[in-house]
């Protein structure tokens, strides 16, 4: 790194800025939109100069959608809460089930283990719409339609394979000798799992959990079909912004900002552990 010429450093800086600009611009633009009224958003040509307003946020938090014709109530904050409950609970259940399973698949090769692991992964290949129709019928019969429990169950289709496969890779990367050493030192297999395997795969588990959380948060189609108003997450709830009298761009933008904030915050917080995980790999030998 120290041997880079000034030109190289400049080019690198420019390239990085372009990438950042490309990926961050939409988010930046939405942030700007959320601070404007519908009129300033829609003027042509668009301008960066405007008087910022927090009205959009106020309307969303108060649950009143003001259009130029009428006022209707929306339950955006409730949707946000639903999203949070559904995603967090799904990831928690997936971690509880997936991490021990991943450990089993990584450490104990038994007859058919590879097939079972692959079958679980294949749930992610199947188009959700394929399973939704029969699922809806079953859920209605079982009384699971429009319950948190039912939704969290279905969300396992998204979270479980993801966590299982990512965490399995991390467990496989831990030298089995390290675990053998702990057992030979006199600790049982469960203590070894808890004190050695779990902490060492920790960064991987955090990464998988974060990814699963984001996937669950962004899910649309399961919740659209299986949940009605009071259990809907933000992805479905956002449909309410398309009204008969027009589209409230400012409020949609504010809603988007509010709905990406939790995942963004989670990612920033988890980043510490992810980076730590990368450097932990260098200990071998």
């Amino acid at each position, binding site marked *: 790194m120290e041997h880079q010429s000034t030109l190289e450093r400049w080019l690198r800086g420019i390239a990085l800025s372009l990438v950042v600009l490309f990926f961050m611009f939409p988010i930046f633009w939405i942030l700007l939109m959320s601070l404007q009224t519908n009129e300033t958003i829609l003027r042509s040509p668009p301008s960066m100069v405007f008087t910022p307003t927090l009205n959009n946020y106020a309307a969303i938090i108060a649950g009143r959608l003001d259009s130029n014709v009428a006022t209707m109530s929306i339950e955006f904050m409730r949707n946000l809460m639903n999203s949070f409950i559904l995603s967090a609970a799904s990831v928690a259940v997936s971690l509880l089930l997936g991490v021990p399973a991943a450990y089993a698949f990584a450490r104990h090769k038994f007859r058919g283990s590879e097939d079972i692991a692959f079958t679980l992964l294949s749930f992610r290949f199947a188009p959700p719409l394929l399973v939704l129709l029969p699922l809806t019928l079953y859920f209605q019969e079982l009384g699971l339609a429009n319950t948190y429990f039912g939704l969290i169950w279905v969300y396992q289709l998204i979270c479980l394979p993801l966590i299982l496969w990512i965490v399995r890779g991390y467990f496989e990367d831990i030298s089995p000798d390290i675990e*053998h050493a702990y057992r030979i030192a006199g600790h*049982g297999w469960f203590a070894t799992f808890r004190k050695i395997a779990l902490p060492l795969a920790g960064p991987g588990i955090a990464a998988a959990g974060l990814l699963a959380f984001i996937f669950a948060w962004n899910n649309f189609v399961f919740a659209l079909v299986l949940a009605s108003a009071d259990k809907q997450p933000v992805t479905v709830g956002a449909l309410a912004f398309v009204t008969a009298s027009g589209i409230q761009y400012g409020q949609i933008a504010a809603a988007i900002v509010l709905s990406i904030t939790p995942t963004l915050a989670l990612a920033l917080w988890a980043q510490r552990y992810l980076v730590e995980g990368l450097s932990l790999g260098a200990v071998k030998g």
Partner: protein
Amino acid sequence: MSRITLENLTKRFKETTVLDGINLEVPEGTTLVLFGSSGAGKTVLLRCIAGAIEPDNGRILIGGSDFTDVPPEERGIGMAFQNFALFPHMSAFDNIATPLTARTLEKSAIQKAVDGVSRLLKIEHVLSHKPKALSNGQKQRTALARALVSEPKVLLLDDPLRNVDAKLRFEMRLELPRLLADRGATVIYVTQDYKEAMALGDRIAVLEAGRITQIGTPEDIYRRPANIDIAKLFGDPTINLLDVIPQRDASGVFATLSDQRIPLDDGYTEFVGEDCVLGLRPEALSFAESSKAVPVTVEAETPFNEKTVTLVTTLRKREILLSRPAGTPAPSSGSARMAIDPRGAILFDRASGNRIDPKSTASAEEAAA
């Protein structure tokens, strides 16, 4: 009671047989060195004893009781791994203390035991460091301390000096025998370094392709290797191997090298006319003026600290290495003559590679009759 007995131990991975019916007995309080090239099955054998790998067949007895199906945590064994296998998220202190925390000792007792063993191994100043911050030598000592701290009756050491630098390896080779003797534990020590094997082992077991091909004292293995492969593994520079066909005349059995007779034991009568390989240890050869010595041409000389190794060729361009104490006078080029100490000569059967022992004269006569 910590005698280790292995009975017909067999392990296969898919189609490959890694351990092929190993029978081994290590008496209490002695050190057995398990010696062999990479892939011979040394590490697998050690792991079977530790319980990290389950054998397909056979029994493992420690102190006379069957441990084959006992989980590793209940075997009470101390083990040091070749790759150290330290716990990267724990400090050196916690690493060393793991065998003690399993037995729920009091904090002060753990502290005392860890302090003791780390003072012995000179790592007391790095106890608070994570393995990442330790040098290779410190890692190796930490791993060794972890194996020793609970004073186990059985110690398994898997090539612990493999990944440390030459200076430390030399120091540890001197320290370890005393350390192991002090503990009075039964030790199995794996290595690929013949000097380490000779320095540390009360006995050496040579493992080749999953079978034990020879067990004996270091002296035995060096003087009387069971076959050509073992002869080549022990000794630096390696043994000289010459294809010969023993002959016999009125004065006895002999082989020829550069038209000169090399007298052999008369017990080899049975092998006259057979294809054999003559093994000559480089230090059994010396330069001499005698007319009976073998004429050779000196090709190159490599001085080491304590000895000088000379490469010579015979009349038929066979290369031979000759080793002599440094400082002894010798021709450095051109023609010379080489004397052979017959006590350093070992005869092998060329087809099987096995060592041939001279039959005592009486039995040789019987065979002739």
